[in-house]
């Protein structure tokens, strides 16, 4: 029971024997660095481990003051209840459609616009680019009220198109892809044009050269929308249209003392993203890194 409380302290202590490192002129030796790193990682992952450990405890054990990681009995009953109570399959489906739909639509429209801004000459191009830059700086919260009213006029509240379409193009995406397209040598498309390729074929060629940028941007769109709370909270007022984030947040408001149920529900909601992350972990962190440098 008590052992759980020791974990963040115990792990670094166990690693604390520093092997004398060759370059002694560092602030921390490798052993200490490892100890600090492990401590930080344990502290950061701990809340997620804790909620999982508690979600497989029987309800009575949760409330009788056993806040540790280990339990005498392991039960899946919280999960069985939570699955139905939060309607997990429905929330998951909504989230996949919302995040996937926004990602697909936004990649299409962003890349078309970015292509036009990067490669085509047409009147008003600079004006449009400046508008994109201005949009980039606006917090989306300013548009919450008018968008809600607009969707309500269209009778699009509680619909997928209402969730997806307002996000179907994105200033950051346009800006990001335009910068990437500009870095592709123009000679390539000139050669293609001489060979008589159509504008659309050149666009497709540029896309093929931009796969890493498109993947990065897609990952961003997907992650951002999957995790978003405020937008789905406002557009869906009907529980059948909630996403995982908004559904769980609202569920918590109604079932605040059914701890086991809530814990199992939040684990269910967290697991898909964690699994996805573990599968494409390298891609994830590389994407963040490149976007930060660009």
């Amino acid at each position: 029971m008590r052992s759980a409380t020791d974990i963040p302290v115990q792990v670094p202590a166990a690693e604390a024997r520093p092997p004398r490192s060759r370059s002694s002129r560092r602030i921390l030796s490798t052993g200490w660095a490892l100890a600090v790193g492990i401590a930080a990682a344990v502290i950061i992952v701990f809340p997620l481990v804790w909620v999982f450990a508690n979600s497989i405890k029987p309800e009575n054990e949760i409330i009788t003051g056993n806040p540790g990681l280990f339990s005498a009995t392991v039960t899946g009953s919280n999960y069985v209840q939570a699955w139905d109570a939060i309607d997990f399959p429905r929330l998951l489906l909504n989230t996949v459609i919302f995040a996937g739909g926004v990602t697909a639509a936004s990649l299409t429209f962003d890349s078309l616009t970015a292509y036009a801004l990067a490669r085509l000459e047409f009147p008003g191009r600079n004006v449009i680019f400046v508008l994109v830059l201005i949009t980039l700086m606006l917090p989306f919260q300013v548009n919450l009220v008018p968008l809600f009213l607009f969707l309500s006029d269209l009778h699009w509240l509680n619909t997928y198109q209402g969730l997806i379409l307002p996000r179907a193009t994105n200033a950051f995406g346009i800006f990001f892809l335009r910068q990437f397209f500009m870095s592709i040598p123009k000679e390539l498309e000139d050669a293609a044009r001489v060979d008589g390729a159509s504008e659309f074929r050149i666009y497709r060629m540029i896309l093929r050269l931009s796969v890493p940028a498109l993947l990065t941007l897609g990952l961003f769109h997907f992650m951002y929308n999957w995790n978003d709370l405020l937008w789905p909270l406002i557009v869906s007022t009907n529980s059948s249209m909630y996403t995982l984030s908004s559904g769980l947040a609202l569920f918590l408001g109604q079932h605040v003392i059914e701890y086991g149920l809530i814990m199992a529900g939040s684990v269910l909601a967290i697991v898909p993203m964690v699994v996805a992350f573990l599968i494409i972990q390298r891609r994830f962190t590389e994407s963040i890194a490149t976007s930060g440098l660009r």
Partner: protein
Amino acid sequence: MLPSLVIMALFMFYPLIRAAWLSLTNYSFFGTSQFIGLGNYSRLLHDPQFWGDLGNTAYYAAVTTPVSVVLALGLALLLNRRGLPGRGILRAAIFLPAVVSLAVAAIPFRLMFTPSIGLITYWLGELGIHATDWLSSTTLAMPAVIIVGIWKNVGFYMVIYIAGLQTIPREFYEAARIDGASAWQRFRQITLPLLNNTTMFVTIIALIASFQAFDQIYVMTQGGPAFSTETLVMLIYRQGFQNFSMGYASAIGYVLVLIILLFSLLQMRFFSRRAIRY
């Protein structure tokens, strides 16, 4: 390109104009709407709630931003060293919160802060500190949501810092070492100045994110107790979608625009300066 423009016009510029118009009316979802000029803005200036929330937002940003940036830099330095066993796993673990939904991850935090079942109060109790319910304390609720805000983003900023660190040529350090520079001197004279751009970038995105804080606050405290954790975005949500004072909420939205525009302009200046340098 045309569809993109249509979407932007419909869902970005049209609402923006409508928000500007709404902010000049006393529109509420159910009632009628009247033009009241700058009434909402003068109401804002005299609304202690608004000033309180602005203060809360500033407090949140003033703590979250520097703490996240410093922690991220420290962790990046730690996990960028060569020959550190398992550094890939450690990086992944610290980055993990960046991929999970803040709203959902705030649920375990809320429970951990709940005295009857939570670990945090239990631990403090074991240390002889009397168990208090952080989330219902007007002084401790804000630190609690700040901790969660830092938890969510520190790994994300760390990864950006690691990328920045990797652009620094190793020869610089070797030369410095030959000259007999101490570890601290190497950090002060090489690492920190060469990370300037990264630091600027991280600081600005951290600031902008802080000014938009909402998710974990909505889940953990709903802005309470006694509005002590209510931020500007919480206020927009509450006025617009709980009180349905949509005109007033739009006016608050424009104040947020003003604040964020200020920081974004800083960001733009920083980007253009960097563009010249390289």
